[in-house]
């Protein structure tokens, strides 16, 4: 399941469903709103493109790291401290693939998925700068 949504995720149910035949290792990454002196966080997505890009990343991760199952759920809208922002769930036969696949997915999401975060504080708001200046991996390279 690859989704951009406002609703939260049932991590227990999602993890149980990830145990497809052949699974020996499941790795879950849960990105959480950190209490950096903020009141809330507001997330915005270019939804169609974000989902398409996450589907591409999931397919690449599956091929590169021999994953058996991938879920990526990125939340948008207004989230409080401690809420889930991004859930990445991968299954593999063995742990090296599961860890590597999970890590690949989060790093690629940071590079290329059109989603933005605004931290809301008592004094207003601040758009979080991306980790990658050009937003699409290598400067100037089309995806």
């Amino acid at each position, binding site marked *: 399941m690859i989704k951009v949504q406002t609703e939260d995720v049932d991590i227990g149910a999602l993890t149980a469903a990830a145990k497809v035949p052949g699974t020996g290792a499941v790795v879950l990454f849960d990105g959480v709103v950190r209490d950096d002196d903020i009141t809330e966080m507001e997330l915005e997505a*270019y939804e169609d493109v974000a989902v398409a890009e996450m589907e591409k990343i999931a397919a690449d991760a599956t091929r590169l790291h021999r994953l058996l199952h991938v879920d990526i759920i990125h939340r948008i809208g207004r989230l409080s401290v401690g809420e889930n922002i991004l859930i990445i769930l991968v299954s593999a036969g063995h742990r090296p693939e599961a860890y590597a696949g999970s890590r690949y997915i989060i790093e690629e999401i940071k590079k290329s*998925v059109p989603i933005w975060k605004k931290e809301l504080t008592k004094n207003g708001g601040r758009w979080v700068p991306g980790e990658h200046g050009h937003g699409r991996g290598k400067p100037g390279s089309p995806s």
Partner: protein
Amino acid sequence: MTAKLRFFAKFRELLGTDIPVPVPEGSTILSLVRDTAWKNKEGYDAIFDDKGNFHEFVIVMRNGKRVEHGDAAAARVADGDEIAVFPPVAGG
């Protein structure tokens, strides 16, 4: 002939989003975005440098596909195109 302009994040706050725009004959992606952004100086300055070129960090897409800055000045806008303009992504 019309196209849809979409701005995101800070650019959206300054310029709005999902903006239907008439496309004058011979419009390029660059000219169309420039003409639309022009209505708000802060929005224009967020996207363009003082020579009227996209700031290096600005990302431009046509129908979900990245368009290089160098190509945006020549690429003609077609009827129904969706042009998206946004700052570096910060999801995850």
